[in-house]
C-alpha cells in the first residue's frame, strides 16, 4: 500500500516534470523567432549567424532536458 502511494507520487511527479518542456519550447521558439525577424531585416548577415542560433537553441533546450531528466529519474530511479 505504502509503496503504491510512493509509486503513484513518482508517476504524478514525472508527469508534472514534463511541463518544464513547455518552457523549453517557449525558449527555443523565442530564439528562432527573433533570429528570423532579424534575418529578414538583414538577409546578408543571416548566414554567418546560424551557428550562433543553434548554440542559443542548445542552451535554452538544456533546461528542458533537465525536466526530462527529472522525469526519467522519477520513473526509473526512485
Amino acid at each position, binding site marked *: 500500500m505504502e509503496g503504491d502511494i510512493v509509486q503513484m507520487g513518482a508517476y504524478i511527479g514525472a508527469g508534472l516534470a514534463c511541463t518544464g518542456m513547455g518552457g523549453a519550447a517557449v525558449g527555443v521558439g523565442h530564439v528562432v523567432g527573433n533570429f528570423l525577424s532579424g534575418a529578414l531585416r538583414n538577409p546578408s548577415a543571416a548566414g554567418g549567424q546560424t*551557428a550562433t542560433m543553434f548554440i542559443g*537553441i542548445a542552451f535554452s533546450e538544456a533546461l528542458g532536458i533537465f525536466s526530462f531528466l527529472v522525469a526519467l529519474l522519477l520513473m*526509473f530511479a526512485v
Partner: protein
Amino acid sequence: MATEAHGAEDKGLELVFHPMDQFIVKPLFGDGGVGTFTITNVTLWMAITVLAIVALLVLGTSGRNTVPSRIQSIAELAYGFIRKMVEDVAGKDALPYFPYIMTLFIFIVFSNFLGLLPGAFTTTSHIAVTAVMAMAVFLAVTILGFVKNGFGFLSVFWISSAPLPLRPILALIEVISYFVRPVSHSIRLAGNMMAGHAVIKVFAAFAPMVLIGWIGVLVTPLSIIAITAIYALEVLVAFIQAYVFTILTCVYLKDALHPHH
C-alpha cells in the same frame, strides 16, 4: 523497461507491441543475458555504422579524382562543412582537433540516419552510448584547457567583464553549468532520438486499428499520415542533433583554448 506491458491488452492481434520495445538491448546469438562482451544488436548496428562510414570516406574517396564522383563529392562536402564549422566557432588554432570533431559528427549522423531505417536499432538513442561520447569530450576539453593555459584556465569561471560584486555569484553559476555540460550534452542527443522513434511507434500501434472495427477506417489513414509526417521531421532532427552535438563540442573547445572572456 517495457517487457511487463507486453500483451497486456492483446486482442488476439499479432501487431500489438509496446513503443519502447525497439530500444531493448538483446543478444544477437542465443537467449542468454547481456554481459560485457556479449554481441548485441547495438554492436551489430554500430558495426554497420562504421562500415557505412568506411564505405563513404575511404572507398568513396579512393579514386582521388580532380573532378569528384558523386560519392566523393558527398565525402568532400561533409569534410568541408565540419572544417568550416570548427574554424568559425572554435577558431583557427582549434584545427589540430578537427579529426576528432569530424569523427564525432560522422559517427552520430550515420547512426542517427541508419536508425531511421525500418527495423533498425538507433544506437544513439541510448544514454549509455551518448554519455560516453559526451564524457570523452568533457574530459578532453578540461584536460586540454589545463594543459594549454595552466591554472589560468580557471578564469573561464571568473567573468572579468561583469561588475565586481556580481562576479562570485556568476562564478558559482558558471561552475555549476560547466559540470552539467556532459549531462545536457548526452541527454539532448539520446532524448531527441528516443522520443522521436517512440512517437513513430505509438502511431504505428494505431495503424492496424482497421482490423479491429469500423473506427479504424478513420484512425488508420490518419495514423499513417502522421507516421509519414513525423518520419520526415525525424530525418531533419537526425541531422540537426548531430550538428548541435558537434557545434557544442566546438564551443567547449573554444572555452578551453581561449578561457578569457
